[in-house]
């Protein structure tokens, strides 16, 4: 009988990620934009990953789902919390990491790993879009530029505009007032302020659970070099960024699947 493949799914509100493992390591992965139907997105992500392998979406998969839409995936065999999956995935990729920041579309999470790579503590905020990926997207719309352009501009800032970190709506008003004041605040300084508002919000969570090197950053926002730079300035050292920062939790979920299969449960 063919050995079941371990699959991890991270069903987020913006993107859905799938990772397939075999005995030797990562066999395939996919990141797709989430649709309205979480289950359909999950299936599409797995199918896209499987295309790279010649395998079919059939019963020979063992699927662990995580992320905000995990409970909607009826064909998953088990669900695990995002924190557990992040810890598993990160320890696999970057074993020296003791603290990780994950900035998703709608929430930010900080996880602390113990010396065995197990999740030992976490903090997250999910009451407001401030400090999340959605917040940055909104700000990019306001600044009439892409996130990549924002990242590039942030390096040119000479000062940092004040932007609140407690409420996305108030932050938006502040940014509008910076844009329209006479003379307008330089856009680079506004962007530096926007990035700092995200970073300062998340730094309080890091301080709450304790900062220990090495520190990694994951999630789609980790691809924003400008924001990562502001984090590095605050920490005073370089952060580790995995090769596919968006897929870390999906990888962790796949590892959980693999462990479950090995246990024979």
């Amino acid at each position, binding site marked *: 009988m063919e050995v079941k493949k371990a699959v991890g799914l991270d069903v987020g509100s913006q993107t859905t990620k799938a990772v397939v493992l075999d005995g030797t390591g990562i066999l395939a992965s996919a990141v797709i934009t989430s649709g309205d139907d979480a289950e359909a997105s999950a299936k599409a992500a797995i199918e896209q990953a499987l295309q790279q392998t010649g395998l079919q979406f059939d019963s020979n998969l063992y699927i662990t789902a995580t992320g905000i839409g995990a409970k909607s995936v009826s064909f998953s065999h088990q669900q695990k919390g995002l924190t*557990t999956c992040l810890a598993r995935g990160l320890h696999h990729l970057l074993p020296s990491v003791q603290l990780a920041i994950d900035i998703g579309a709608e929430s930010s999470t900080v996880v602390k790993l*113990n010396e065995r790579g*197990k*999740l030992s503590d*976490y903090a997250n905020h999910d009451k407001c879009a401030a400090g999340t990926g959605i917040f940055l997207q909104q700000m990019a719309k306001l600044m009439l530029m892409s996130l990549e352009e924002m990242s590039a501009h942030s390096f040119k800032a000479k000062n940092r505009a004040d932007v609140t970190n407690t409420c996305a709506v108030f932050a938006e008003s502040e940014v509008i007032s910076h844009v329209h004041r006479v003379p307008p605040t330089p856009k680079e300084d506004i962007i530096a302020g926007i990035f700092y508002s995200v970073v300062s919000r998340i730094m309080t969570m890091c301080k709450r659970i304790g900062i220990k090197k090495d520190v990694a950053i994951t999630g789609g926002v980790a691809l924003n070099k400008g924001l990562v730079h502001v984090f590095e300035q605050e920490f005073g050292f370089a952060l580790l960024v995995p090769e596919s920062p968006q897929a870390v939790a999906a990888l962790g979920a796949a590892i959980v699947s693999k462990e479950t299969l090995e246990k024979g449960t």
Partner: protein
Amino acid sequence: MTVAESRTDKINAIVRASRLILRMNPARPELQKSDAIYYKMLATYFTRLLEAPQKGGFVAAHTVFFPTEILYAMDIVPMHTELTTWMAAMFLGEQAELLAGGAELGLAPEICSPHRGLAGAFLLKALPRPDVMLWSSLICDNSAKSGELVMKLNDCPGFFLDRPFQRTKPEVDYFVGELGRMIDFLEQLSGKKMNWDRLSEMVARMDEHIKLLQEISELRKAVPSPFPYQGYLKLLSVDYMFPGQPEATEYLETLRDELAAMVKAGKGAVGKERFRIMTLFIPPMYMSGFLEKISQEYGAVSVVEPLFTLWMEGGLDPSKPLESVAKKSFLIPESRTMYGPLSKQMLDEVVQIARDYKVDGAVYWAFIGCRHTCATIKLFKDVLNEIDIPMLTVDCDLVDPTINSKEEIREKLERFFELLEER
């Protein structure tokens, strides 16, 4: 501001609900006797309150942690404002109406919701008009100010009992003097005399209650732990509403015996105990049934509540009743964090308690309206982390269901249980 006509339907609802629960007795078989006593006590308490006007009873409304034993000793009918309000609201599911009443009085959403609600309850006349309002600096600034508003709303006299912050001899002596002054005030106002022999009897019983509560805590150390999640609020309300009362003795003795039998039989509060939880502060009261369900589902048992149900010291002296009433106010577990001072000794005790009760993790229910207790969260987290016990902090409200959804709470607890399992 329009004060509504007086109503009795809310109090009636508590009495009816208590009697209904008493008849149905849905508690687990092992705790049926104590549960029956508890709901009978509630029905009696609120029936006495309902009947007070007809029977010529003198009703004293009071805030939480007020020394109610003095009222019982003077044959005055007590009305615990916070608990009466919230029992009525929860039995009827009308929290929103009471909170809206509080908002009409100008109380901002940042203010403690039980106090916003009780002010709203008096505005809407959901609680009967008291003959006197009694309140104290125990246990927070909200309590210290609530009484004035209640007096105004009811156009009734009142007395503010000033309980000092520290437990030094001059301060304890001062508090004994304050208690004496309050008794004089009540005697003059109500025409009822303090029965000192009765107060002494109550002090003796309160001392017995502390011992019983300590025995119950001791039984909860057992693995598996026998005490169910929903019992927490019952233990609190017994001390809040029935200090020194014989029915409270009966309840606590029965509960102790039932728990002892469970421990002897190796029976726990949940089918398979997986996680032993230390509970800090109070979980949302309106989610009590839901949290019990989660407790069963995940095998998570609250084994100790060091800031609420764990009495560290007793030794009340019936021959010195007033001094003992004063002393008890310094012994109540809640005063450690809610009134302070939160000493290094207290933090050390929490660490020792975590070890003694074999705690796997702690959950701090961060009641957002209680800013002075939330200020202590990091202190508890740090000392527990030092002994490798993780602590989950859940931002919530005791009574306002608009702050958290059940799904959100479930998600947070599930994630925390996963962390505990991972370790």
